[in-house]
């Protein structure tokens, strides 16, 4: 047995580990709301794992990954996703903090702090990567 696509293989392993973790949590506190998530994780995990172990499928995946058009679309999508994440995290931060202050509920304030952290992480990572690429090129 040989691994032809390491990234796919480890994604599969991670998904299956997540499914196992959910199953373990289900055994402890009931399966009611976890069955669907477990099923999705198992199906995706097995599919990734088999694709990572098959020569033909790994080749297909690699060709698709290296395709110029696919790369362009992925890059465009991820840069757009970063901008959307920044805007939504900022809005969430404000909403949670206002809700926390209005309702005097600590839960909302904690969630607002988490959203603020995510916003800061997105802004700072953008700043540092800009500096990195400015220096590199």
């Amino acid at each position, binding site marked *: 047995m040989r691994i032809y696509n390491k990234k796919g293989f480890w994604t599969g392993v991670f998904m299956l580990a997540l499914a196992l973790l959910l199953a373990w949590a289900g055994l402890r506190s009931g399966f009611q709301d976890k069955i669907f998530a477990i099923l999705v994780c198992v199906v995706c995990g097995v599919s990734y794992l088999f694709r990572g172990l098959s020569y033909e499928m790994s080749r297909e995946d690699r060709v698709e990954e290296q395709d110029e*058009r696919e790369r*362009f*679309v*992925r*890059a*465009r*999508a*991820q*840069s*757009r*996703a*970063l*901008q*959307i*994440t920044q805007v*939504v*995290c900022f809005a*969430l931060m404000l909403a*949670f903090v206002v809700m926390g202050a209005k309702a005097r509920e*600590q*839960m909302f304030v*904690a*969630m*607002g*702090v*988490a*959203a603020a*952290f*995510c916003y800061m*992480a*997105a802004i700072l*990572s*953008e700043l*540092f*990567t*800009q500096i*990195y*690429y*400015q220096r590199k*090129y």
Partner: protein
Amino acid sequence: MKIYHKRNFFWGIFTLILAGLSVATMIRFGVSRYQVWVFLIMMPSGLTQLLRSLSYESSKEDRLEVLDEREESMRQRAWVLAYRMSSILVGVLMFVLLGVGAKIENDTLIDMGMGMAVCFAISVLADLGAQIYCQRKYG
């Protein structure tokens, strides 16, 4: 007076509003070092953006910089890397906060983990939505 660069103009206004809010907070709750820093950063940056957007020459410069192929490629690469970095960081922190919160039975940590989970889900969904949009647009 004409606005030559709308995005910079509104960004300048937004930054000046934030500076104004920091002044209002200082008047209401007293001066703090943090608020002074916020004001000192926001005020000049907002004013610069505003004035640049009202000047024809500066707006032209800004627009040319945005259209420059090399700059665009660099920005694109930086955004992609930044998206991956921030997603991984938020995902790892979510697991850590939820795990530690459950272990020591601290509700605040669990709430923060939930906040992180919401942001993580938003970033994954935004990526998914943007992939579908871009596949349709450039496909």
